[in-house]
Every structure is written in structure tokens, then in C-alpha cells.
């Protein structure tokens, strides 16, 4: 090691150890602050991951492959024909995309009317592949009567609880679905209720019906067409990467648009961004307090050692080297306490809450937010990216907190400082 660097490190390390009590007290503030931040961040990320997961499963996946105008029009005319669907399916089979895809669900989303002897109400009918959808939307987990659709079902429907109530439907009841078919004519389809679900989201419970996709195609004369290929990825953290890859593959294709969940669910995106901002403000305030604590400790230490800094500079230490000693002291103090705090925060969160933090006692019933039913059990998310960000924040705090004390140490009158009495 360069002798000058060694000297600066030696002086800084020993000075931190020299004021052990003051260093430990300051370090404790940093340890607790960073531990709280690590705890809050992992729970925050876990919560957001749950929101996104719930949203994309019930919606159009992390990524939707659709006709370019479908997102705005919701019109059956804006659908993926057989060729477009084949191309989109081929993109999803590319090795670097495929390895991050968990499921691809073909869907036909149709605006129509559901009628029974009791009433007629506007609804959203979704033609689904039951075998895939069981894993994708997990609506089968919310059955309150009957059963979810099975691959052999044909003229069966899975309806929301409120819709069933309004149409006075029970398991086995018949209802008529009406919508515009491929030729623009109104077509109707008789189906029987196979199961009733309740997910707690009013618009879904009161206005959503799922039927087998092949029934929907036959009913509306759509061949193998779909309105959406909904893509579920291994996690929300890889969406941007896969979106970029798929958009690269789809570049120049006028019939297929690649839509991320943020565009498909702008309210959920906005909610997460707002929540993130709240977290950032909290982080900023807490890091600010920690910074002031470090500034105080390092500045006190510098003022207390005015004579020493005078001697150091008299002996030949330059202003830059003097500043380096002070900044290194601040960095050591911050790095050690920051790393301990980060380890403590992540460790305790993993130890106590790795299976989830249950908020259900604080909620009266299902809690919905931005069109998503929130799981009351938040499972913390541990991300290397967040650990990296925390380390950068710690380094920035250490540097910033030391700058002013370092400046003070370099601006002393050397001749006066050598006679200074602390």
C-alpha cells in the first residue's frame, strides 16, 4: 500500500477508536437508522411486489401482447389474428425471454351483456384457457360455491358473487351472454354457472364472467384469435428488461403491441410511485438526521484536535491530505455502523418476518386499492439492488457528513493551531 495512504488510514482509524464512546454513540444512531430503513424498504418492496402480483394476475399479466389499439378501444375488432398471434408466440419462445416467463395466458376479452330471468347487466366476459388460468389468475382460490372452470368444460361460466346475486344465479343456473360477434352482429350464448367467486374487488365481483376460450371463439366466430396474450414473469423486477427485449423483437410489427403492466394499469403504477416517493422522503429525512449526527461527531472531533491538525500540517501534511484524514474518519464511522445497521435490519426482518407480516388484524375486510385486492400478509422482498442502493447511500452520507469538518480542518491557522488548548 502507498505509504501516504497507509498513514491517512492509520490516523483516521486510530482517531475513530480514540473517541470510542462518542464514536459508538454516533454509530448506534446510524445502526438503528439504517436498520429501520432496511426493514421498511424490504417490507415496502415486498408490499409493492404483492400489489403488482395481484394486479397483473387479475389483469393482463406483467406484459400483454395485444393489437395496438386494443388497450384504448377494448373493441373485439382490435384483436390478434392467427398470424400475429403466431409471431408473438414465437417471440415469447426466444431463449432469453422464455427463461423469465412463467406462464402465457391467451384471452378473449369481450364487453357484453349477461341476462337471466331476473335481470340483465353489462359485464366483461373473458374467454380463458382453464388449465393455464388456474395458475395465472388464481381465481380458483376464491371460489365460494361450485368449482373453477376445468379444461373439459364447454358451456360453463365462472361468475362473481355480486353478479350472481343480482341475476339470482346459483350453481347450475343458466344465463345468456350477448355480445357483438366478428361480423358485427349481436350473438348470444347460453351457459351454466359452474362456480361463483368473491375476490373483494367490487368491479370484478359484480361484472366479471369467465368462460372457456374455445366456447367464446365458437360463440363469436373468432377462429384462433385472441385479444390478449397475457405474460406472467418470474417477478416484477424483470419486467423492464423483458419489455425491452420484446419491444426489440416487435419493432416494425404493425399488428402487435407490447404493453407493460404500467401502461395497462396506470392507477396501480401511480399508486406505487406515490408510495415510493413517500418512502424516499422518509429515507431522506432519516438519512438527513443520521448525516447531522455524523457531522456533529466528526466536527467535534476536528475542533477538539485543532492542535493536532496544526502539527500535522506544520510537519508537511497538505490541506488535501488533511481533508482526506477527516473524510476517511467519517467514512469509517459511517461504513462500519451503516453495514452493521444494514445487516441488523435485513437479518431481523428475515428472522422475524420472512414468512410475512400479517396486517389482517388491522383490516375489517378485503382491502382494495387502485383496482387491486391487497394481501394483508406482506412478505418482505430482499433485493441485491436495494442493498447496493443502501450501500451507496451510506457512502454518500459518510462523505457528505465529513465535508464540512474536513473543510474546517484545512482552514486552520497552522501557527496558532500548534498552540491551541482544547
Amino acid at each position: 500500500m502507498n505509504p501516504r495512504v497507509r498513514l491517512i488510514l492509520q490516523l483516521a482509524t486510530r482517531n475513530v477508536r480514540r473517541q470510542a464512546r462518542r464514536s459508538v454513540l454516533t454509530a448506534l444512531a446510524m445502526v438503528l437508522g439504517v436498520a429501520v430503513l432496511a426493514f421498511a424498504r424490504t417490507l415496502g418492496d415486498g408490499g409493492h411486489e404483492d400489489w403488482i402480483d395481484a394486479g397483473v394476475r387479475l389483469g393482463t399479466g406483467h406484459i400483454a401482447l395485444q393489437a395496438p389499439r386494443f388497450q384504448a378501444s377494448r373493441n373485439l375488432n382490435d384483436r390478434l389474428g392467427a398470424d400475429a398471434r403466431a409471431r408473438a408466440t414465437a417471440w415469447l419462445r426466444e431463449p432469453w425471454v422464455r427463461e423469465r416467463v412463467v406462464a402465457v395466458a391467451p384471452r378473449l376479452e369481450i364487453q357484453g351483456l349477461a341476462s337471466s330471468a331476473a335481470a340483465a347487466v353489462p359485464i366483461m366476459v373473458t374467454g380463458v384457457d382453464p388449465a393455464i388460468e388456474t395458475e395465472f389468475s388464481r381465481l380458483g382460490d376464491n371460489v365460494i360455491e361450485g368449482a373453477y372452470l376445468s379444461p373439459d368444460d364447454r358451456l360453463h361460466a365462472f361468475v362473481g358473487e355480486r353478479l350472481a346475486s343480482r341475476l339470482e344465479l346459483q350453481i347450475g343456473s343458466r344465463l345468456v351472454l350477448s355480445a357483438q360477434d366478428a361480423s358485427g352482429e349481436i350473438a348470444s350464448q347460453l351457459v351454466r354457472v359452474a362456480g361463483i367467486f368473491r375476490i373483494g374487488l367490487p368491479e370484478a365481483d359484480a361484472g366479471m364472467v369467465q368462460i372457456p376460450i374455445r366456447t367464446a371463439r365458437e360463440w363469436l366466430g373468432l377462429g384462433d384469435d385472441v385479444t390478449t396474450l397475457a405474460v406472467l414473469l418470474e417477478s416484477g423486477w424483470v419486467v423492464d428488461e423483458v419489455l425491452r427485449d420484446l419491444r426489440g423483437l416487435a419493432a416494425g410489427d404493425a399488428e402487435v403491441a407490447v404493453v407493460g403492466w404500467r401502461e395497462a394499469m396506470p392507477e396501480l403504477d401511480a399508486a406505487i410511485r406515490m408510495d415510493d416517493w413517500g418512502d424516499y422522503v422518509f429515507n431522506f429525512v432519516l438519512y438527513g438526521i443520521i448525516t447531522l449526527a455524523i457531522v456533529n461527531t466528526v466536527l467535534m472531533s476536528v475542533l477538539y484536535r485543532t492542535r493536532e491538525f496544526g502539527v500535522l500540517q506544520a510537519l508537511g501534511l497538505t490541506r488535501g491530505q488533511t481533508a482526506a484524514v477527516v473524510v476517511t474518519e467519517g467514512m469509517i464511522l459511517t461504513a462500519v455502523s451503516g453495514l452493521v445497521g444494514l445487516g441488523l435490519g435485513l437479518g431481523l426482518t428475515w428472522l422475524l418476518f420472512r414468512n410475512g407480516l400479517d396486517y389482517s388484524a388491522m383490516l375489517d375486510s378485503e382491502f382494495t386499492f387502485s383496482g387491486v385486492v391487497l394481501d394483508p400478509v406482506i412478505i418482505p422482498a430482499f433485493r441485491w439492488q436495494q442493498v447496493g442502493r443502501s450501500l451507496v447511500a451510506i457512502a454518500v452520507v459518510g462523505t457528505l457528513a465529513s465535508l464540512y469538518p474536513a473543510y474546517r480542518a484545512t482552514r486552520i491557522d497552522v501557527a496558532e493551531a500548534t498552540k491551541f488548548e482544547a
Partner: protein
Amino acid sequence: MPAVRTEGVWKVFEHDGQVVEAVRGVTLAIEPGEFVVLAGPSGSGKTTLLNLLGGLTRPTRGGVWIDGQDLTTMRPRDLAHLRLQRVGFVFQDYNLLPVLSAAENAEFTLLLRGMPQEERERRVREVFQAVGLQGLEDRRPTKLSGGQQQRVAVARAVVGEPALVLADEPTANLDRAASDALLDLMAELNRSRGTTFVFATHDPQLMERARRLIRLVDGAVETDDRRA
């Protein structure tokens, strides 16, 4: 070329609206190998002149040169570099760094110069032998007596073999025996290594040993006597 030279140097302080002329138009030249004492009563400007000679403070007027280099026009970084390479300091209160051991205090300027480890160790070993501190290398300053601390300070000042050593009241906190021992040591270093020593003191014992005695009164040179 003189080891250090001043030309009409002034240092004026302003303190609470009062103007204090600490050094008034001092012109002197100190040749390499001299053993010089700046003497005078308290407030006569000895320490301020010493600080000017060492580049620790800048003159209000006039010039200071070390080995022909004009200190008044130097940037702080270059001044620090010059002090590191050419000047050694011994302070009245020792001013050792408490976080470093005795040997590490002495090694400090060598590390700053970027000297290789073997060379540093050799020099520290030699200088500790010369100042009679063998066996005390690993002690922290707080575990040393006043005389021992001042010897470490001398070791730190001379280990880099500077052209000029400036010592401000080096015997002020020492008893007679320790003072004698310290002055013997510095006189020996002056003889054997040719190091130039400039002391600021009102210690008669030190004045007796001076080969050149410069008396200051009210910031100006009153007498400048060379002795055989």
C-alpha cells in the same frame, strides 16, 4: 546560499481592533550548520519569527527564503511540501500525535515522503539510538516522561535529515538534567550531521550554548552576536 534568509520581514496582527507589530523589519541570513538562538523577553517576537522562518505563517511585508526558495509566493501545497522536505519542527509542548507510538511519530514525515519501509525502519532505528530512546519505540506519548517525549519530538524533527530544524522553547517543560541531555543531543546532531538549528528561547542555559545569539526586542533585532 543561506539555509534560511529574511529580508525586511514584518508580521502585523490585528486583535480586537488593536494592531500588534510582532515582527518589525527583520533582515537576517542563517548559514547551513549554524546553531542559532533567538532570544528575548516574552512578546519580543521570537516565536512569530520562528514561524515565519518555517513557513507556518506568512509575512505581512518582506520576504523569507529557505534554500533560495521564496516562501511568500508559494501555494499552500508547495509550502507544505517544502516543510516536509526541508524543515523539522520541535515544539514547546512536544506536540506528539497521541494516536501514534513513539516510533510511528518519528516515522510520520518519512511516510509522508513516501519512503520505502526498509529505509524508514533503518532511519528510525538509527535516530532512536542517537536520541537514546531504544526500547521505547512502541510506547504511546502518554506513557513517556516529558524528557522522553521531547526526545521523540527531536527524533521526529531530524529523522528526515532536514536542512533546518526550528525549535520553539524546547527546554521549557524540562528539568535541568533533561534540558542538558536534550541540548547535548541537538548539539551532537548539529556537529555530526551539519543540521542547522534555530531556537526561540529565553532559557539562559540554551543561550550559553548558542554559537550565534540574536536578541529581539519589540519585534526587531537588537543584537546579533556570533561566538567562536
